[in-house]
């Protein structure tokens, strides 16, 4: 199945490059060569043991190499604004940054650049060049290499030194196509020293066709910078979402990444956080609610390269139907990363006989003065707690819901935007009640 893409690249690489930026093209051929060698990952690879991409990759997707504009009015599609949230709002349709004339975006603090990666790479080539591909090109991964060869555009955000974004930036990814469609995009987020930003990424699908999104996001958090990354996925069962989030933390930076999957088809989140400076703080959490044939694999690595850093990781899964969950949590402590403290928890609930969960916490420790632990459980709702509630007049179904909600609440509480927290609580509750099969408010669900 790789062959068609290999042939496509060989024939079309000129036009792929033509519709992208020079900075992105610099590493394109190398990425393609790497992909040609590695091919798409299969379950035979240790890192992809729990992500079976055979089926989603066998679909014949179309690619928009020549960047033909796709007619869509994102505002029509996207109505599920988080009530009460004041944000800067941006859209990416498939893999292209969608320019809208959004009045509230005019208030962006001075020096902040938000826009299309392709365009910024043309207007500020030096800035992009310093960061682009610094994390992604070092990875030996077929999907990232594929992205490197085919991604032509994406989202770009730059927050200069000591600038604080007063409102969260909301990035809405919309998949829109009349035929089965594949989108490759590359996002680049740069926070300079002391900068602060919050990014909320929502994934939505519009049409009932098969979508495959292969997205690589690189984040650079400078010294003392604070960055929060929220990813909320609410797509349909025909969507394959392959998302790679690579974060590089400089000294004393503070990063929170929260990955929530409420509804999807096949999702693979590869998250790697490198702690490349002392006194970094990292909080990585996520939650999955899955049923039907949903497949979610969160593959996470936190790499402690420097001493005196703290990291905490928390992932919770509730699986029903024929859902398949996978979790890998790698904690790596390099030789001289003394005084590291790293804790990881993964808890999973299986609600029926057919749901499956595979979890693989993993500690690799090469320093001796560290405190590291991980805990993982796979089980069911607490019968005694349920019985307690029932004996006090709460119906069984309601008691179950309460318990599940309490279970997921730990993850929701780590959201630092109150309005978003309320919204997600509501969405999760609806999802658990089975009322929400697609994102509320989208055209498609009306």
């Amino acid at each position: 199945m790789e062959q068609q893409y290999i042939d496509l690249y060989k024939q079309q690489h000129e036009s792929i490059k033509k519709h992208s930026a020079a900075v992105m093209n610099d590493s394109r051929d190398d990425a393609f060569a790497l992909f040609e060698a590695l091919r798409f990952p299969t379950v035979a690879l240790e890192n992809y043991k729990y992500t079976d991409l055979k089926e989603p990759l066998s679909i014949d997707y179309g690619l928009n190499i020549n960047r033909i504009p796709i007619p869509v009015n994102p505002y029509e599609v996207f109505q599920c604004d988080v009530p009460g949230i004041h944000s800067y709002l941006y859209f990416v349709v498939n893999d292209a940054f969608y320019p809208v004339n959004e009045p509230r975006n005019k208030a962006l603090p001075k020096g902040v650049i938000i826009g299309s990666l392709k365009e910024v790479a043309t207007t500020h080539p030096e800035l992009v060049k310093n960061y682009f591909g610094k994390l992604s090109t070092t990875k030996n991964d077929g999907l990232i290499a594929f992205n490197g060869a085919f991604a032509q555009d994406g989202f770009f955000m730059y927050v200069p030194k000591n600038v604080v974004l007063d409102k969260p930036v909301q990035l809405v990814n919309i998949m829109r196509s009349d035929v089965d469609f594949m989108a490759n995009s590359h996002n680049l987020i740069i926070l300079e020293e002391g900068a602060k930003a919050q990014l909320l990424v929502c994934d939505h699908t519009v049409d009932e066709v098969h979508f495959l999104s292969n997205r690589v996001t690189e984040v650079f958090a400078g010294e003392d910078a604070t960055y929060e990354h929220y990813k909320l996925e609410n797509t349909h069962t025909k969507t394959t979402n392959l998302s790679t989030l690579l974060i590089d933390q400089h000294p004393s930076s503070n990063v929170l990444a929260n990955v929530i999957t409420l509804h999807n088809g096949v999702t693979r989140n590869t998250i790697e956080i490198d702690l490349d400076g002392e006194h970094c703080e990292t909080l990585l959490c996520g939650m999955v609610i899955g049923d039907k044939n949903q497949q979610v694999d969160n593959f996470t690595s936190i790499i402690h390269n420097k001493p005196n850093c703290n990291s905490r990781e928390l992932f919770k899964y509730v699986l029903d139907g024929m859902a398949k969950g996978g979790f890998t949590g790698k904690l790596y402590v390099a030789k001289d990363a003394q005084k590291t403290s790293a804790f990881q928890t993964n808890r999973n609930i299986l609600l029926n006989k057919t749901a499956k969960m595979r979890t693989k916490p993993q500690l690799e420790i090469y320093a001796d003065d560290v405190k590291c632990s991980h805990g993982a459980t796979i089980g069911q709702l607490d019968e005694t707690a349920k019985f307690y509630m029932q004996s006090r007049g709460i119906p069984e179904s309601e008691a179950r819901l309460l318990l599940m909600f309490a279970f997921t609440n730990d993850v929701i509480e780590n959201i630092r935007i109150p309005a978003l927290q309320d919204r997600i609580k509501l969405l999760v509750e609806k999802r658990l009640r089975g009322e929400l099969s697609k994102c509320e408010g989208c055209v498609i669900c009306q």
Partner: protein
Amino acid sequence: MSTDILHEVTQGDYKYGFTTDIETDIIPIGLSEDVVRLISAKKNEPEWMLEFRLKAYRHWLTMKMPEWAHLDIPKIDYQSIAYYAAPRKNAPQSLDEVDPELLKTFEKLGIPLHERMALSGIAVDAVMDSVSVKTTFKESLSELGIIFCSFSEAVEHHPDLVQKYMSSVVPYTDNFFATLNCAVFSDGSFVYIPKGVRCPMELSTYFRINAMNTGQFERTLIIADEDSYVSYLEGCTAPMRDENQLHAAIVEIVAMKNAQVKYSTVQNWYPGDKNGKGGIYNFVTKRGICKGENSKISWTQVETGSAITWKYPSCILLGDNSSAEFYSVAVTNHHQQADTGTKMLHIGKNTSSHILSKGISAGFGQNSYRGLVKINPAAENSRNFSQCDSLLLGDKCGAHTFPYMEVNNDTSIVEHEATTSKINEDQIFYCNQRGISTEDAVGLIVNGYAKEVLNQLPMEFAVEAQKLLQITLEGSVG
């Protein structure tokens, strides 16, 4: 604080590093179909055994050495190893006929092979290089119907049992090293406990690689029939040599309805010198099957030796209500590497498994726990609890855990927890304050840390294991 002590103690000598000067019958180095035939011929094996070996050998040719382990294994030239080495004298009929040099060896090893045996009440099958030298207490065991003999004797006298159970737990296609063993295995131990019999004494096997450039490929088969019980011990040593030696064994355990098997091992192969030169490569496949209802298999291992250890004693929980346990202490010092753990496959209903693994790393040692707990859809109400702790002594060693958990139903509970830490300065200080030297304090703490596992060992072994731990580690606090 204690670099001197650390230095002193981590130099701890390998006290089993002598060679025995007895005549050995070694076949030329290298591996080919002819060698497999030669081994089979030397052992006067029946045709079906040769067929089995050849089948395995042909399959082995198609396999590649596994590379997934967290180990740095130098390239092994399988053509430079002698696959069969036997003490020259043929099987002795009584203790008097045993080569006195060999008896001295075992005495040095502290195996109670002689009359001391009667006191300690252990039946021993000693395997030197490749051949089983002497099985004591055979007569008194056979009165109960227990068969405890060398594997070759079993092939000769109990071919029906061997044919029925050999390779039923570890198929010849299982993995690279197991397949190699199937092709060239030389000897090993065979245990059969008949229905309703509780084996009155601990059965024990000692393995020793003596000759140079040889590999040891033994296989052990333990069958516990319905309502029976047996406790089996295994110990291993090797002389100090500059070259690496290969040890690829297979252990298979079958537990029928209501049967209980307890398997304990203290592995003390030569770990190489402090620069990582020499030592045994210990690539072993151990697996048990709880075939009948209510059966139980318990693995206890203390791993202090070997340059490289690649070993995952596993259990297939097939019978309903069966249970399995895995207790392990693995120590890596100097340049030792260990990738060890267990696999628990829950197939029957109401099955339970318990994993307790304690890793200790010092020097440049790399210690990994790798485990799989898999609950099949039919294994309702299954339960697993795993705990793996790592203790780091020194800043150049590593401790890693790779637990895999796969659950396929909604009535089972799987729990896993792992911690990594070093010996707390406060604990040492507390002991110092009370007049206990740092060295003793570390000994106390390490022994306390490993106690839960050591408690599982039979008495005779527990003492040896404790001593081994002390030799390798006492005082090595970073």
